[in-house]
Every structure is written in structure tokens, then in C-alpha cells.
């Protein structure tokens, strides 16, 4: 019960205008800093074409897409458990952002790959997993689109969101068996960063900038969803 109250407070805080504004402003400032650090300040990488700098955007988009899908998973479970439509709206926004960032990750990866590998696409485990993820969660958004009844949509989407997320590690495992590894792993661990400290700093700032952008868009989008749900409710009452 206590935990639920805390959750209520967090949700109410997210609705607050000042929170939205400051997160958006923070995201803009961080993004400017990240652009400067990654495109101008950070050094050239030895033996890499200049397109290596795409890593500062590629890695954060990848992580943001995983966060988006994780939000879908958690909010889906919360919805099925509590039956509160607010969780459904959170899941929806998480899914949209996950798909958006997943598409950005693939696009940035392809631009880099064309320079480095000489091909837009390789049927490589990480790439293929990302593509399957994109297809699964695009399916999630389509599913939400074709159902009219609010409760039915919320329930089906939640079930699909859970199944989809459970599938993710299995997809990754299966594709690892099936393909050859080509994708570089730059940061293997915190002790062994695999890149100079300047680059690491630029990447960290970029990560923060994307996290803030994710949060800002998330809050704005969630606000819009909550408002349209409120409009629908009031319209229903008026009729």
C-alpha cells in the first residue's frame, strides 16, 4: 500500500508542468553540449573513418530503445495486475519511443556500416536482433491501432508487450547461433573502456543527453495521452 502511494506521487509529479519544462530545457542544453563534445571536441580515432563519431549517437539510441521496450514490459505487467489504464498509456508511450529509437539505432548503424564494412546491412546477430525487435514492437503499435475498445486494446497490448519482451533474449540467443559476429564491442567493461578518456566523456554526456531527451518526449507524450483520455471521458459524460 505504501509503495502504491509512492507510485501515485511519482505519477502526479510527472504530470506537473514545471517538471516537464525543466526536463525539456535540460535535454536541450545537454544535447547541445553532446553535439559539441562528440562532433568537435572529441579526438579523431586512429584508423577509423570520420564516421566513427556516429557511435556517440548510435550507442545511446540503442540503449534508449531498450529502455522503451522495458517500460512497455513493466507497465504491461502493472496494467494486468492493477487494471489501471494509466499504466496502459505509459506502455503505449514506451512502445512508441522504443520503436523510434530502435529505428534510429538501425539507421545510424547502417550509415556507419556503409563506410566501415562497405555494406548497409549485414545479417549479423546484433543487427538481425535489432531488426526483429523493430518488427515485434511495430507489431505492438499496429495491434494498438486496430482495436477500438479501450479495455480490450489495453489488455491485448499488455499481453503482447509481455510476450514480446520475454522473446527478446531468446531471439538474441537464437540469432547468435545462426550468424557470424561482426559487430564491434567497444566497451567491454568499466575497467576496460576500449577508448580514450576524452571519447568516453563525450559518449557519457551524449548518453545523458539522450536519456534527458527520452524523458522529455516521454513526459510530453504521456501528458498528451492523459489529456486525450480525459477528453474522451468528458465527452462520454456529456453524452
Amino acid at each position, binding site marked *: 500500500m505504501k509503495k502504491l502511494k509512492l507510485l501515485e506521487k511519482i505519477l502526479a509529479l510527472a504530470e506537473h508542468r514545471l517538471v516537464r519544462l525543466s526536463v525539456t530545457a535540460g535535454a536541450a542544453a545537454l544535447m547541445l553540449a553532446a553535439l559539441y563534445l562528440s562532433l568537435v571536441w572529441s579526438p579523431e580515432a586512429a584508423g577509423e573513418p570520420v564516421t566513427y563519431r556516429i557511435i556517440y549517437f548510435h550507442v545511446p539510441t540503442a540503449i534508449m530503445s531498450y529502455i522503451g521496450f522495458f517500460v512497455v514490459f513493466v507497465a504491461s505487467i502493472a496494467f494486468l495486475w492493477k487494471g489501471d489504464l494509466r499504466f496502459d498509456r505509459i506502455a503505449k508511450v514506451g512502445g512508441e519511443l522504443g520503436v523510434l529509437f530502435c529505428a534510429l539505432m538501425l539507421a545510424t548503424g547502417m550509415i556507419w556500416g556503409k563506410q566501415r564494412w562497405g555494406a548497409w546491412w549485414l545479417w549479423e546477430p546484433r543487427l538481425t536482433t535489432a531488426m*526483429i525487435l523493430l518488427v*515485434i514492437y511495430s*507489431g505492438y503499435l*499496429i495491434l494498438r491501432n486496430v482495436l477500438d475498445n479501450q479495455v480490450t486494446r489495453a489488455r491485448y497490448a499488455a499481453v*503482447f508487450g509481455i*510476450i514480446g519482451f520475454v*522473446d527478446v533474449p531468446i531471439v538474441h540467443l537464437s540469432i547468435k547461433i545462426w550468424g557470424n559476429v561482426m559487430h564491434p564491442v567497444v566497451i567491454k567493461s568499466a575497467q576496460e573502456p576500449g577508448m580514450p578518456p576524452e571519447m568516453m566523456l563525450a559518449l557519457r554526456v551524449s548518453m545523458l543527453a539522450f536519456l534527458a531527451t527520452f524523458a522529455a518526449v516521454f513526459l510530453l507524450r504521456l501528458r498528451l495521452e492523459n489529456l486525450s483520455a480525459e477528453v474522451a471521458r468528458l465527452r462520454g459524460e456529456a453524452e
Partner: protein
Amino acid sequence: MKGLIRTTHAVLMKDMRTEFRSREFLGHTFMFALLVIVIFNFAFKIDAQNAPGLASGILWISFLFAGTLGLGRSFLIEKDNDCIQGLALSPVDRTSIFFAKFLGNLLFLVMIQAIVIPMFIILYNLNVMENFFMQSLVFLLGDIGFMTLGTLIAAMSVNMKAREILLPVLLLPLLVPLLIFAASATASLIAGDDPSAYLSRIKMLAAFDLIFFVVSSLVFEYIMDEL
């Protein structure tokens, strides 16, 4: 537990009876699966050299396509005369409806395979069932995973607009791991590889089945409520 088995049995028998009285759908789907196999011959120009390499893929694609057709129908027949309401209102465990539909779909696919695989062996002169026991196990495990997720998604698709296209669009991406495990296991059994090559795939297939069977039977009631 006893009640669960009894209601599962009752719903399954009802579906079987409907199917065997009309005897339409199984025949049509069988024709479709056979056609897929024949069409592949024209697309790939299959001969004795490339047949062993392509066989596993051709078989699994035809199973996936034919199985998806069968899935689409399994809940649609309930929708026709509002039977689904009767089913949803009956005071039984919802899980038993899932089990019954799952078993019905599984039986349907196994029957299709029982005709298509021998036809394949005859038409391409390639005995894919050399290692009969292991190959049957791979087919069965693949079918179980396919029909577990298939039954769940098919139940959802009944209420959707454009359900014929959405069922495969939602289902096939989820089945990518299953297809990889099953098709590679079948391929290495056809090639006569060392057991270590296919045993690990079979284990993973079994794990896939187990995970999704548990998750699907847990979440099915939320779908059943909305049918």
C-alpha cells in the same frame, strides 16, 4: 486438475467433431501446404545436389504457412454464431479453453505434416526422416512452440480489423527463434551430423516451448475475458 482435463477434453472434442463433419478445412490446408512445396521447386529448381540443403527450410516454411491458416480459423469458427460467448460464459477454468484450442491446433498441424512429409520424401527423393525418432521429436517440439504462441495470438486477432494479415504479422516475428532452432536441427539431422550438432538445438526448442507455454497459459485469461 480432473475438472481441467474434463473441460479441455470436452472443448477439444467439440472442435474435432465440427471439423470432421465438414471435413473441408483440413483438406484445403493440406492442398495449400502441398502447393507451397511444389512452388518452391519452381522457385529454386531443386535437384539432387541442392535438395538436402533446402529441404529443412522448405518444410518449415510450408508448416508455418499452413499452420497460420489453421490458427486463424480456430477462434473464428467460434465467432460465427457467437459460440464464443457461450464458451466464455461457461463456468469452467479459462485455461482449459486455451489447452483445448492449443491441442486442437497442434493435432491439425501434425495431421498436415503426416501427409506433407511423405509427399515431400516422394517428390524430392530425399528421405528427411532418416533419423526417424529425433526428426519426429524436432517436428513435434517445433509444432508445440508454434501452436502455443499461435493459439494466443489467434485468440487476440479474432477481434481485430484485417485479422487475416495481422495474425502472421504479429506471430511470425515472435517465432524467429523457434524457426532458427527447428530448421537448423532438421537440417543437421538431414545432413546426418554428429548428435552434438542437433541435441543443443533440441534442448533450446524444448526450453522455448516450456517458457512460452507457461507464460501463455498465465496470460490467456486476460484475452478470454475480452473475446
